[in-house]
């Protein structure tokens, strides 16, 4: 970094300064203010707000959000890995790999309002699938599936979670070399033994990292949850409530405290993910 300030690197400084100022003003400054306010509720240093942000309805919110994000991350992660492995093993329709690759890049960016609408038309009370299944005697509600409930939201989130996992896993899965499997087979290892001793240990860091990313992705999703169930007890919806409602005096630090916890949770997940990714790189960069 110091070399930036040397005479011949004036250009570098000239280019870095606007970018750094921009990030500092619009990202770092508001974030630091929130974190500062979270630990100084009412103007004095204290953990009062931080504690209240994890009690009562807000505690429920965190538990619900973590359960929802965790469930959708694990299911999405497993399906995404299986999809990547299936695509790798099926080499025959040559268009399959590239089509799925492009499709995943697109679908992982979808989400938000239109996606919620699509699932309301599918598994909502007036949804076409709800009605079709009703005709054959299956009531989705009896299985706890409605577009506004826990499993409904999980099903909706999977729409962008599965493609994201596929994108994250494909490089690692491609890194599994065919020669390793052949070598294991020649030495008499069964397919199960090959997976236990070679496949799973190599894929595990990438898979865990991917699932953490999916967790973060689902935890911060707002639009879909808002359209499906705006009164739900999920952290993003509670932040909206605190931000828009006429909050009672003394409560304004609660929103800051919740955001502080969210940032801590996301930061931990992403740091873990980065560590796991480094392990993956060892295998895929060769």
């Amino acid at each position: 970094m110091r070399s930036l300030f040397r005479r011949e690197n004036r250009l570098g400084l000239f280019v870095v300064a606007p970018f750094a100022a921009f990030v500092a003003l619009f990202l770092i400054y508001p974030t630091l203010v929130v974190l500062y306010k979270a630990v100084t509720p009412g103007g004095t240093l204290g953990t009062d707000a931080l504690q209240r942000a994890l009690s009562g309805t807000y505690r429920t919110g965190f538990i619900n959000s973590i359960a929802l994000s965790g469930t959708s991350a694990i299911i999405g992660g497993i399906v995404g890995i299986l999809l990547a492995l299936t695509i790798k093993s099926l080499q025959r329709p040559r268009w399959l790999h590239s089509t799925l690759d492009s499709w995943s890049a697109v679908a992982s960016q979808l989400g938000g309002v239109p996606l919620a609408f699509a699932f309301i038309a599918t598994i909502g009370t007036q949804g076409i699938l709800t009605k079709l299944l009703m005709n054959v005697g299956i009531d989705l509600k009896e299985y706890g599936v409605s577009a506004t409930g826990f499993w409904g939201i999980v099903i909706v989130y999977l729409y962008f979670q599965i493609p994201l996992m596929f994108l994250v896993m494909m490089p690692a899965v491609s890194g599994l070399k065919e020669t390793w499997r052949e070598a294991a087979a020649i030495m008499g290892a069964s397919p199960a033994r090959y997976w236990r001793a070679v496949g799973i240990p190599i894929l595990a860091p990438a898979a865990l990292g991917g699932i953490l990313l999916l967790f973060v992705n689902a935890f911060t999703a707002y639009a879909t949850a808002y359209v499906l169930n705006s009164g739900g007890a999920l952290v993003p919806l509670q932040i909206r409530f605190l931000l828009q409602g006429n909050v009672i005096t003394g409560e304004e630090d609660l929103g800051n405290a919740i955001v502080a916890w969210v940032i801590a949770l996301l930061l931990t997940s992403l740091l873990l993910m980065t560590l796991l990714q480094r392990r993956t790189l060892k295998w895929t960069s060769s």
Partner: protein
Amino acid sequence: MSMESVTALAPGHGDPAGPPPIDRGRRGVRPSSFIRWAFLIMVALYFVVPMLAMARFAFQNVPTALLTPEKIFTGWSMSGLWAALTDPQILNAAKTSVLLVVFAIILNLVLLVPLAIVTEVRSPQLRPFLTAFTLLPWVIPPIALVVGVAATFRATVPWFLASVFSLVPFYALWAMPFTYRALDAGLQAISARTLYEAARSMGASLGTIIFRVLLPNMRASMIAASGLTAAMVLGEFAFASLLLKTTLPTQMVTYERSDPRGGLALALFVMLLTALSLGLVVRSLRRRGLNVQTTGL
């Protein structure tokens, strides 16, 4: 090993050791192959059915409760979509969103193109900082930053948040990770450093190098970054909604409340448009061999 080379290695032609045609036919009914295809078809159904359900709801004017097999072909019309597309408030919101896209792209390219070039050709020591920076938007997502913005800018510079274009810097911020990744991938693909040194040793000025050597070569990655930014901005709901700004996604939710059919038709239309343009961007990138991560990681 990149994904490209894996696809290229797939057998199919020029593979003398490949199985004879009869063998292929037999392999097609192997149980494991059957399971794979069954799995793929199930996943495909999961992705296709909601889109079809949405299209039916949007374009068939028959309530689901009254839908019977005889009525499958009745009541189809584009009137809902047409009404939504000609709604003055939707048009206004769409105009706002398009302007937000344009401004966010310009701001991003102005800030990041010079930075990406300097990092690649002159100051590689900046790279770790930029890589760390690309994780920041995941740590501070819209739903978290909006609280900070409300706590700071709303109190100190209220005129700033009064305009809908106050969203531009924040949208640019969330688009920065994949913009930087796309630019960086583009620079590495053309070996920018070698080009820079070659041009320099032949006495080219800095301006000549940037405008006649590097920038023309970065067109593909700039287009890719712009496409991804556009998709991000056209889909962003949380930040705009919580700051009470009217953009296309927020207006879509309002519109759907008064006209569900038209609202869904509009949502499907916007989603297809986004998906198509994004798909074209991704495909053209893959064809050029640029391994751009659309996730921005």
